[in-house]
């Protein structure tokens, strides 16, 4: 085998992505590991702390039920900042456009970006536009970077899960991945599955009221809930146990996953967060989520059971026990 090649799986957000980061990218760009394995870097400066993140969007198709590449690009970066407990403030936009792309479609994408920014309360303050010859990019790619500020001293990150903590998700899993897949492959379904793309900073503001009881926040995007929880388990050095029967899942998503042999735990989300909280705060956090528009289907899906080298298990619907691992290989390329 030729190990020099970059494979699609290196962009899956799963195990191969982690390998590429650990073996090549982070060692080569020493200094960037300030982000650790978290969604954004938190940088200390004179007047306090600052969160900084960046993300590129190559989703195919660029328009899908529930959103398009524009609002996805704003929401994604807003969420990465919010997951550190920061208040997202400023966003940059980099557009890479293929020659021959429609101005009308660009206008729709830009207006979706503006609307998403307004909803999230962030300002788009700077940007860049490049056009490449036809065939050298696929329609449009977007990069967004964002800066967030802190108005509290809480340290929310992936290392903070501890035994006894409860795992809470703000709604149904796998919606975005299955929506994009169904649209791209033209799956003829009886219902339309909409992407869950949404800015979660408003919901996070609610959750921050729990203070010290809020240990970890993370949005399970590429690689899905399984990959995200495995990352947290390893970072915190704990075992997480899920209850399959408690996972919120739309029937249509469950059906498509069953037909195509996908595990919904590995499918991407774009408007979901996992909150890991102290047990005494769990019911209150659940209540706060359910009272927020982004969390009506929220559920407690598991708990941290013990200190370990980092493992995730699941009690299956029938009462069996199995391990949960990161996404392996490429599941659905160009999902975001």
């Amino acid at each position: 085998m030729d190990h020099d090649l970059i494979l699609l799986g290196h962009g899956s957000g799963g195990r191969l992505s982690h390998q590429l980061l650990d073996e090549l990218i982070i060692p080569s760009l020493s200094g960037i590991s300030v982000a650790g394995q978290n969604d954004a870097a938190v940088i200390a400066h004179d007047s306090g702390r600052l969160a900084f993140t960046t993300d590129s969007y190559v989703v195919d198709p660029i328009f899908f039920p529930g959103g398009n590449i524009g609002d996805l690009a704003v929401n994604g970066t807003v969420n990465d900042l919010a997951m550190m407990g920061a208040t997202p403030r400023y966003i940059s936009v980099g557009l890479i456009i293929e020659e021959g792309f429609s101005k009308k479609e660009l206008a729709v994408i830009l207006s979706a970006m503006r609307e998403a920014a307004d909803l999230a309360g962030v300002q788009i303050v700077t940007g860049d536009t490049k056009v490449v010859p036809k065939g050298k990019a696929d329609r449009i790619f977007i990069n967004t970077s964002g800066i967030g500020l802190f108005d509290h001293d809480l340290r929310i990150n992936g290392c903070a899960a501890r035994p006894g903590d409860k795992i809470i998700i703000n709604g149904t899993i796998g919606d975005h991945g299955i929506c994009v897949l169904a649209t791209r492959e033209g799956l003829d379904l009886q219902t339309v599955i909409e992407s869950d793309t949404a800015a979660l900073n408003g919901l996070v503001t609610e959750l921050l009221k729990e203070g010290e009881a809020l240990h970890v926040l993370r949005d399970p995007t590429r690689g899905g809930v399984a990959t995200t929880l495995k990352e947290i388990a390893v970072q915190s050095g704990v075992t997480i146990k899920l209850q399959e029967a408690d996972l919120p899942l739309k029937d249509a998503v469950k059906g498509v996953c069953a037909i195509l042999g996908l595990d919904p735990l590995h499918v991407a989300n774009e408007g979901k967060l996992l909150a890991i909280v102290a047990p005494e705060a769990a019911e209150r956090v659940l209540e706060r989520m359910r009272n927020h528009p982004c969390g009506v289907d929220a559920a407690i899906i598991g708990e941290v059971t013990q200190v370990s080298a980092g493992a995730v298990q699941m009690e299956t619907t029938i009462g069996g026990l199995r391990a949960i691992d990161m996404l392996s290989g490429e599941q659905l390329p160009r999902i975001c």
Partner: protein
Amino acid sequence: MNYLDQFQDRNVVRGLADRIAQLTAGRAAPMTFMEVCGTHTMAISRYGIRSILPSQVRLISGPGCPVCVTPNSYIDRAVAMCRIPGIIITTFGDMMRVPGSSSSLMEQRAKGADIRTVYSPLDAMALAAKNRDRQVVFLGVGFETTAPAIAGSILTAARQGLDNYFVLASHKVMPKPMEILAADPELKIDGYICPAHVSAIIGGNAYRPLVENQHVPCVVTGFEPTDIMQGVEMLVRQVLEGVSRVEIQYSRVVSWDGNKKAQEIIAQVFTPCDAQWRGMGTIPGTGLEINDAYAAFDAQKAIPVEVEELQEHAGCLCGEILKGKIAPSDCPLFGTTCTPEAPVGACMVSSEGSCAAAYKYMN
């Protein structure tokens, strides 16, 4: 509760587990049941079924994953073909990562070959219709389950005069390999969990010679947890009664005679041939090749290529694993040099492979 949920009912499964435990209580030697279907392999691991069965019942996996039993020489031919300028190779996703003698399709795609994942041979045909100036080859692997759809695509292509659509066929048929494994004294198989989808095509009667010649209980079993638990219970009862017969647990789908129409389509396009099984060597009459009437669609005949010399992967024990002789974790490469990201053997690649299931759900 929807239709699927009923077959995953925790209380029903618990009831079946209790009954199996009562029936087998006190037995010194465990009963060994083999499944020969990748979907069963995955379902058993995914639902954690082994963890709720008593230690007196042992479930092992046989040669049921179509990608896993496909020999290296087939991958090598596909790799050679994808290097022909202008050709489009279409395949089910699992074949992409299977390492051949020196390369894989995934690697060839990264180097620029036009290889596309499809969900059905019909997608491949549609691609051929849209690209009439290019040769489109579908990698046709699988058992009796996928054979009818692929035969159907060839019939349609013939009707439509689609002369740029080809199938590189490597189909295999059950249940003859099951007979060979049942006769293996090293394995001591006490019963077969017979495949669900294959049986929907070939029917329950197809297992009668196996039962008569080898005296091994056979239960055609569905894929949901309650199906598998009930199938195991039926096998346990046969063993305790000292009988061997064919039973159909999956009666909501499988009949005794199978799907006649599908059998006809297979017979119309394919003819039986000897087939090479990874780990089991060549077994006479267990393959399907495209017959002379449809030879124009046979990629192997229509698109000649020079295939590299065959090399087996040193230390890979996929063959022994496919025969059920060792468990994935008994292979020295398992989880060390052979992982889903850098697979050495096919069993670690396919989403239905025994090693992939063991790695994904139990490591």
